[in-house]
């Protein structure tokens, strides 16, 4: 078994003529929930797209150990299919067992909406339908781009619990967020700003290093340093 799930080395990405990822090197250990935290526009989506292999990169390399489940920031499901029909299609593409459809539906708490057209779901339900696709086939590595925005506190707590139980099974969860209060729920943090990494550590170590109880404070101190 390797000691990393994701390895990023010297990654640079240019989008629209600007270098939006400016030389990143880090690894993500398996079996943890790692948070990719940073302000809007700092390059989180670009980094995640590079990790799952759909981003053209200018330099560097990315390697991922094991199968990947990816959930895009904008819901990537067909609006003119029901939730179940979407899941059945993606399960077929992934060659996942058909029993997965019911499992992921209950994982994201969408069983009552299973036969509803995706186009008629509420914003939070839509986000969960899209997240459910990433859980199909029980991938080793989950790359989730802002999966918990628009969700109410109860659902958000449930999903974070699910991320942690997945990590306990030995799977790797990489979650992006621009909301600082989600940082405290992660086992490890990648702080990102303007295409660069500010920190790659555990929340406790970051609090200690910056001498602040609050992770938002910690981020700000690192940003001005």
């Amino acid at each position: 078994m390797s000691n990393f799930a994701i390895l990023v080395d010297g990654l640079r990405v240019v989008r629209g003529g600007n270098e939006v990822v400016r030389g990143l090197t880090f690894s993500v250990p398996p079996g943890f929930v790692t948070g990719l935290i940073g302000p809007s526009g700092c390059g989180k989506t670009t980094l995640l797209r590079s990790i799952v292999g759909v981003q053209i990169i200018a330099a560097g390399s990315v390697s991922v150990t094991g199968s990947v489940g990816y959930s895009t920031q904008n819901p990537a499901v067909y609006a003119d299919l029901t939730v179940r029909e979407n899941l059945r299609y993606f399960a077929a593409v992934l060659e996942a067992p058909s029993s997965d459809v019911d499992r992921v539906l209950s994982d994201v708490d969408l069983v009552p909406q299973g036969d509803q057209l995706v186009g008629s779901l509420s914003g939070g339900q839509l986000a969960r339908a899209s997240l459910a696709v990433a859980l199909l086939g029980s991938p080793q590595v989950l790359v989730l781009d802002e999966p918990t925005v628009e969700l109410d506190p109860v659902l958000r707590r449930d999903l974070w619990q699910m991320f942690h139980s997945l990590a306990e099974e030995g799977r790797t969860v990489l979650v992006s967020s621009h909301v600082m209060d989600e940082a405290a729920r992660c086992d490890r943090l990648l702080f990102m700003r303007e295409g660069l990494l500010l920190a790659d550590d555990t929340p406790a170590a970051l609090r200690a290093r910056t001498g602040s109880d609050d992770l938002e404070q910690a981020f700000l101190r690192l940003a001005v340093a």
Partner: protein
Amino acid sequence: MKTLATAQRILTQLRHDRRTVALMVLMPTFLLVLLRFVFNSEPMFSRAAPALLGIFPFTIMFIVTSITTLRERQTTTLERLMTMPIARLDLLLGYAIAFGLVAILQVVVAASVSWLWLGLEIKGGLGLLTLIAVLDALLGMAMGLFASAFARTEFQAVQFMPAFVMPQVLLCGLFVPRDQMATVLNWISDVLPLSYAVDALTHVTRSSDVDGTLLRNLFIVLACAVVALVLGAVTLRRKTP
């Protein structure tokens, strides 16, 4: 397997959108009926109908495919699929099978009504006519897929219809026989694939011979569809900027 899953997914999407299906299947027939009564003459109708039996499926498949693929690119379902173990060919063939089935339905209805009610003679038989028109529909599909790569918005995608389709319609021999066109226009019409589809359709209505010219024309349409499909595949990139 994944090809069939994709085809089934697209057909399910269509099933949820009955109005689109009804329009796709019945619109060509409706237009042919209208044309028959506009001409108010069976011979004139019989001259124009074969070309139209090719043009309608070609055009409709072009529009439907370019919008569907554009939507797939925009809603990032394509991005998600590109992270999954699916070949681009699975997607393309899935599209081809699903839309091909719709095209068969469309052509069979339009040709049957033209034959049974509107007085169109089909000497070469309904089966052969349907085959040619379906090839033609696949050509429209492949070109629509290719065109969608150049459209940023659905507005632009709809505008590509006149750009890609109308010149072919004007030059395919429907309005003026191709050999009576100015030399340059005749040359242009010689390199546009719809011209060969229309020639083949016209031939099948007038004669039951399956001759070399017919086979050559069919081959050209098929080859163009394959080329457009390959070009379309090139535009379905796994990695994007």
